């Protein structure tokens, strides 16, 4: 398949590995931000291929994982109401809140539906004028334009029974938190290709300059990641700290300007709590006041709640790259994808879930 096969080609991968072996002279710690990239690294065993001196740690870029417990609880509360059709991306359904999850709400008779685009929720709202239709708008910058467009469209149509529970998070503020931490070990970042497809990478140039850290915008196939790692190693070995773009087939420096404009019209920046990390100022988007009629939190008058995380979970350390998933005593024992204790075990793209799914054999043997 075009754009797939050449990026999974073993010979190209081998050539990159050999190139890296010649480049590297000392240990480096690199972090991929995006959960999709973590998934590829584990699925293809890329950490086995690269030189031992290059350590990969896994970032907080799994939107399902970092969605705060409180938001999941709000979703469950809304979805349990008999007058509501609750529409969500599939992988949010299994995410446990503090006492239930959306699958269980569905099992108890709640009308919870899986959608692949938010516009499906608008269609459901049109077809069910007597029900309140709520879309669970989570994700990084990647999913924001489609969500923004949907709200915009709903307002244009005058839909009164459609709203969104918004929990958007932003990548650059999270990188800043990691770099500001005194415990930080990360020396170079693979920036998330899909996010940059929308946003471009100007924001990352500021980060690279301020913290003197190299950043390479990377794709999601094995060859993409090997190339991105190789570019980071080259920068580190040469003492450079620049933003480079490996994912040129999808990402430009300015990103998708029309998409950014619609996001700007509909959303404004706000503080956001990240599951496993905590509050990060200006790290999310919420609906602007002029779209309040479409804000599910306002429509349903939900109050702010505070829910503690299970104390045994070390996800904060995992998400900052300070611990590997299998260094956790609960990993694979009391914490599994069926019964996750914390954020990174929740979605297939979380670091713990990726280790659980693809790497248990190396731990077992």
């Amino acid at each position: 398949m075009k754009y797939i096969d050449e990026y999974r080609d073993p010979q190209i991968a081998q050539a990159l590995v050999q190139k890296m072996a010649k480049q590297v002279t000392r240990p480096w710690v690199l972090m991929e931000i995006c959960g999709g990239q973590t998934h590829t690294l584990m699925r293809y065993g890329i950490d086995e291929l690269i030189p031992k001196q290059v350590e990969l740690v896994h970032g907080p870029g799994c939107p399902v994982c970092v969605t705060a417990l409180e938001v999941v609880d709000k979703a469950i509360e809304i979805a349990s109401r008999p007058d509501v059709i609750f529409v969500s991306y599939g992988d949010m359904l299994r995410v446990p809140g503090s006492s239930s999850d959306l699958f269980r709400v569905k099992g108890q008779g709640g009308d919870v539906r899986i959608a692949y685009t938010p516009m499906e929720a608008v269609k459901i709202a049109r077809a069910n004028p007597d029900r309140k239709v709520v879309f669970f708008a989570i994700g990084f910058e990647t999913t924001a334009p489609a969500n923004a467009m949907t709200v915009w469209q709903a307002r244009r149509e005058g839909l009164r029974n459609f709203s969104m529970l918004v929990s958007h998070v932003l990548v650059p503020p999270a990188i800043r938190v990691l770099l500001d931490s005194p415990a930080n070990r990360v020396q170079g970042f693979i920036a998330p290709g899909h996010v940059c497809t929308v946003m471009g990478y100007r924001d990352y140039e500021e980060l690279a300059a301020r913290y003197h850290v190299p950043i390479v915008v990377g794709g999601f196939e094995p060859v993409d990641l090997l190339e991105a790692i190789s570019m980071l190693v080259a920068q580190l070995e040469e003492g450079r700290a620049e933003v480079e773009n490996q994912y040129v087939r999808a990402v430009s420096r300015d990103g998708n300007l029309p998409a950014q404009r619609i996001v700007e019209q509909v959303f404004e920046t706000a503080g956001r709590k990240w599951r496993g990390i905590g509050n990060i100022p200006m790290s999310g988007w919420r609906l602007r006041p002029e779209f309040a009629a479409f804000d599910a939190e306002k429509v349903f008058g939900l109050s702010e709640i505070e829910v503690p995380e299970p104390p045994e979970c070390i996800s904060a350390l995992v998400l900052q790259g300070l611990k590997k998933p299998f260094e956790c005593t609960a990993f694979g024992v009391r914490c599994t994808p069926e019964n996750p204790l914390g954020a990174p075990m929740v979605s297939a793209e979380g670091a713990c879930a990726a280790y659980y799914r693809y790497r248990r054999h190396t731990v077992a043997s």
Partner: protein
Amino acid sequence: MNALSCPVPLRLKDQILLGHGSGGTLSAELMREIFLPSFSNPVLDCLDDQAVVTINGARLAVTTDSFVVKPLFFKGGDIGSLSVHGTVNDLAMGGATPLYLTVAFILEEGLPTETLRRVVASLARAAEAAGVRVITGDTKVVEKGSGDGLFINTTGIGVVPDGVHLSANQARPGDRVILSGSIGEHGIAILAEREGLEFESPVESDSAALHTLVAAMLAAARGIRCLRDPTRGGVSSTLNEIAQQSQVSIRLDERAITVRPEVEGACELLGLDPLYVANEGKLVAIVAPEDAAPLLEAMRRHPLGAGAQIIGSVTEGNPGMVTMRTVLGTSRMVDMLAGDQLPRIC
């Protein structure tokens, strides 16, 4: 597992979830914790796709399966033909010659009679093509809202030839794993037609009766240990079950597993792994190493096995574990999923 000693926020077993029907670890948990303790006996405990019982010297294979597929009609088949193929295949995986079917319909009030006619006609055609007779049946009608149009249960009876003993607990280190063709077509065909999933796909279900392929295989090789059709949960769940029941490890070679481009495209789009997507016309064979080549040759001569490949082998160590050599030459686990594969958000 004791829920009290387990300080996790959620246990999945206080209520039935869709995932309990997915063929993954949740299904296995139902089996282990509810069904087996109540029904345990030497025949059931084999946990094969069919039960083999000896009655007056005749070895009969019996199996039952319920079909709740939505939509009722899809590219490459419908619930009628599927309810024949599914049950015939469960018999065939025991090496049995399928003979008879029972058919039970659960109809929802309001179902158009024409829909029932089409399904029954398709079921009859599929039964005739497979050489099995529908010898008894049942009809129930439930109130509107208590069903989903139409559910079918079929029970199959067949005869197992002398000398044939296939079971998922017989895989041994050194055995080869053969897959009869490309994977994922049924699951993607169904997904493409589901409500809310608006992508057009040329993928047709591979739904087919495999008993003639199995007959050709049994004639060609004596060293077949086990046959399984990788339906719900896909090839990965089937191989995990075999590895667990035989207490062996299975090592796959990713390069040998064929996925048609249109299936691969749909999986990439939806974030699904084809190893976990359902098939209805494929089988996995575990065979003694010396019989692998003649078996492969016999399979490839049959139209339903034309794409057969050796995809891996049975090894010692890490009992119950399935691992795979990736296209890049690295190693990864091929796990059994908890429930259904969920499409990723981005």
